[in-house]
């Protein structure tokens, strides 16, 4: 715990408590959002920035209420548009650490356009997508990540929409940092969130989150003891793609643009690399679970590309050095004439 004033100054050691706001948290008891909130509040003190440098931006939905619970600057905006608000904030003040907290409906349905364009611009914001495969706040309709056949109030005989896969989408949208973690794994989440925060450019983290009220157990196979060992593929830079329980280790082989599940001791198991700028490998990885394989958890892709705000600052600085002008100069630019 820090003893000095915690509002200002670099190098102060803040704690999780310092990031808790005085607002009552209003998520349903047992909601996966609580552990994500705790995870974020634990990670921020590690980043060395004072609280006032953080801005949390939410859209609409259960997840989007997140900013109210952070003792930082917070802006609860409108449905789906949080990445656009965050873009304006970051462009004007690149020193801020800007976080977008969103859900599968907010980010992928109504806000799909803003999500992909923030990512392709590589604007320096961190986007945390809480994926619970359902609309929570509006009481349980199927979402863009719900699987075909999901029965909800708005799909009583099963949904017929094919789902989106957020990681595949992020790869297609040229995102430079793409990762997945789960609400139930604080350690893994902490690692991923810290990496995401330190990444320059857009970082996108899909967090598998349990909506206990409307879609309980959507991710159980990846979070429950006894199941997750068999079903989760942890991605580690430079490590082979292997997973499974002690007595049933398996690996991923990549052959002819397809992934194949083989015994872990087979030759040619793929080795994970995050710096796949091309995206073909990362995309293949993002489809493993879709095709019935294990759920990859970790960093799918992580490479450098100048962020939007940095390039804009460069253009502004260059223009200012090149052409100093007063407002009077501006008004007198072009053809003028004297009238006597």
């Amino acid at each position, binding site marked *: 715990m820090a003893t000095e004033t915690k*509002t*200002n100054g670099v190098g102060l050691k803040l704690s999780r408590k310092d990031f808790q706001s005085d*607002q009552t948290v209003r998520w349903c008891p047992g909601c996966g959002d609580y552990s994500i909130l705790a995870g974020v509040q634990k990670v921020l003190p590690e980043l060395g920035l*004072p*609280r*006032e*440098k*953080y*801005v949390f*931006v939410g859209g609409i939905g259960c997840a989007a209420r997140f*900013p*109210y619970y*952070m*003792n*930082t*600057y*917070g*802006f*609860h*905006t*409108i449905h789906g*548009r949080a990445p*656009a*608000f*965050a*873009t*304006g*904030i970051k*462009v*004007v*003040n690149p*020193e*801020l650490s800007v976080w977008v907290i969103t859900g599968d409906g907010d980010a992928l349905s109504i806000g799909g*356009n*803003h999500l*992909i*364009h923030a990512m392709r611009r590589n604007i320096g914001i961190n986007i945390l997508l809480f994926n619970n495969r359902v609309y929570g706040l509006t009481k349980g309709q199927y979402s863009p990540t719900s699987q075909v056949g999901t029965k909800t109030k708005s799909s009583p005989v099963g949904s017929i929409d094919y789902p989106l896969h957020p990681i595949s989408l992020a790869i297609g949208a040229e995102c430079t940092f793409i990762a997945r973690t789960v609400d139930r794994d604080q350690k893994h989440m902490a690692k991923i969130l810290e990496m995401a925060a330190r990444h320059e450019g857009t970082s996108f983290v899909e967090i598998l989150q349990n909506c206990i009220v409307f879609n309980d157990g959507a991710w159980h196979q990846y979070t429950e003891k006894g199941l997750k060992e068999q079903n989760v593929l942890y991605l580690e830079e430079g490590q082979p793609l292997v997973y499974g329980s002690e007595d049933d280790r398996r690996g991923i082989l990549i052959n002819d643009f397809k992934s194949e599940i083989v015994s872990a001791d087979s030759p040619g198991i793929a080795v994970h690399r995050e710096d796949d700028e091309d995206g073909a490998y990362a995309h293949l990885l993002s489809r493993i679970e879709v095709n019935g394989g294990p759920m990859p958890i970790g960093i799918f892709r992580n490479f450098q590309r100048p962020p939007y705000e940095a390039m*804009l600052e460069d*253009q*502004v600085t*260059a*223009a*200012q050095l*090149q*052409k*100093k*002008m*007063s*407002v*009077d100069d*501006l*008004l*007198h630019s*072009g*053809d*003028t*004439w*004297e*009238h*006597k």
Partner: protein
Amino acid sequence: MEKMDDNSSNGSPEKEVVEVESVTIRFAGDSGDGMQLTGDRFTSASALAGNDLRTFPDFPAEIRAPIGTLAGVSAFQINFSSEDIHTPGDALDALVAMNPAAFKANIGDLKRGGILIVNTDNFTEKNFQKAEIDSNPLDDEKLRGNYQVFEVNVTDLTRRALEDMDLQSNLADRCKNFFALGLMYWMYTRPMEPTKEWIKQKFGNRSEIVEANTRAMEAGYHFGENTEAMASHYIVPEATYPAGTYRSISGNVAVAYGFIAAARKLGLTLFWGAYPITPASDVLHELSRYKNFGVRTFQAEDEIAAVSSAIGASYAGALGVTCSSGPGIALKGEAIGLAVMTEIPLVVLNVQRAGPSTGMPTKTEQSDLLMSMYGRNGESPVPILAASTPSDCYDVAIEASRIAVKYMTPVMLLSDGYLANGSEPWLIPAEADIPEMKAVFREDPEGFMPYDRDPETLSRPWTIPGTPGLQHRIGGIEKQDGSGNISYEPENHDHMVRLRAEKVAGIAKDIPPVEVMGEDSGKVLVVGWGGTFGAIAAAVEALQARGASVSQVHLRYLNPFPANFEEVMRKFDKVLVPELNLGQLVKVIRSEYVIDAISYSKVQGKPFMVSEHITKIEELL
């Protein structure tokens, strides 16, 4: 008209020079014929000749409509005068028609006895078909009875002038607009020198183009001088208007300058969130050139992102502005409501065009007033300002910024296609003339509450991220006054809805009263707003000169209205409200003041003509 000796024609046939007070001409041709550029140059030359002037470019929405068709006609109108004028002119004194489609689309606007110059090389059977004309209109005897017709083989004469240059013929043909320009320079006694300079600057390193265009223009000029058919030409003397340094300015450029100036004065970064749309895109283009003023233009993925990013920028301490036209503004409604709720400064510039839906993108209209006032969910009041002339766009941009920042509110700023592209001479103001205004950020944590209020303005403190000790949360959910905490309490909501309305209404104390042009009581008061100013002013002045009991009020502030507005209207027997819509301001006046104001509306995608106002006002006198 007064006849003078011509002293400019060195040895060329003796021609008569006729002095005239005001002239309205129109260049019309195919979109690819360079009519806008021709018009721009003629404007510049007339400005240098010391005339007062107004312009009206009118072009199709299609970038390359099929050549020779009516859909592809592009025109540029200019009114230049030795007197004060307010409009680009009603009927034409001269029309240059580069092809049959341009002839057909514009001949109806030419005055009886007016000058018609046609490029006969384009008057071919094929082009008649494209223009949907049965037979050669030039063969019609009546045409010659009604107008002074000059048939000029412009294409052929241009080619001949450039014959020895060994240019590809399509390149030579592209110079024919300069031939037409040169001919009109002769016709209205304008010097060619400035245009020659301009050509050099514009095409500098492409010397064959410089020479070709210059020669084409000279050929046109000399054609006028030498052809016997043209017996006289005209001169419009210098106008007497205040001395000083002038430039020509269009509304879109003026508004861009206004925001740069306002941001400077406020000490803020200008953030411009926009998505391309006609006729607003030119403002984005203009501002994107001024990164040296620290302007951050952001071409967003859509209209909603454009406004949202601007709100984000204001939230973070910039002057956030978003700009669009009707359809785009409709998309921004929800986000504007958020700025109302969170009380964040924002200016929303709407360069209006003919609607609904896509409507007629390049045609003017003022039919978004009610959308600006009421087009959001909930009780969502915003101040609304409108520009009245191209140069006024500069002043209203500054004023809109001042109000947005002082009152922590989104402000709607209305321009229109007519102001955006039209131009007028502008006595260049000085930076020092910008009214006093400042942006204050809350920095003191002592007693801080996000929805604390300034007792005078009722605005809340602007508290930007990065300020130590002032971390707080805001959002679109109703909040407790003061603390800003989420609140669903019935009395609090009632209080907050009224408070937001009161804050906007209170701006009436901070704006100038309406000014009456003419007597402050009488038979008819004409109340206008926006780009109709010029035509109404010209009509009212003309009638006043004849002794009619008519006055004019032109509103810059449409919400709130100036405090004395009602009182002013009540001093007249009749209130006439001309608008390029089906009567939007008139509705507001009638409901607000229960005054039986009379609507005069027109929705043709075209500005009012002076004569239309005169006729209408005369009916009421």
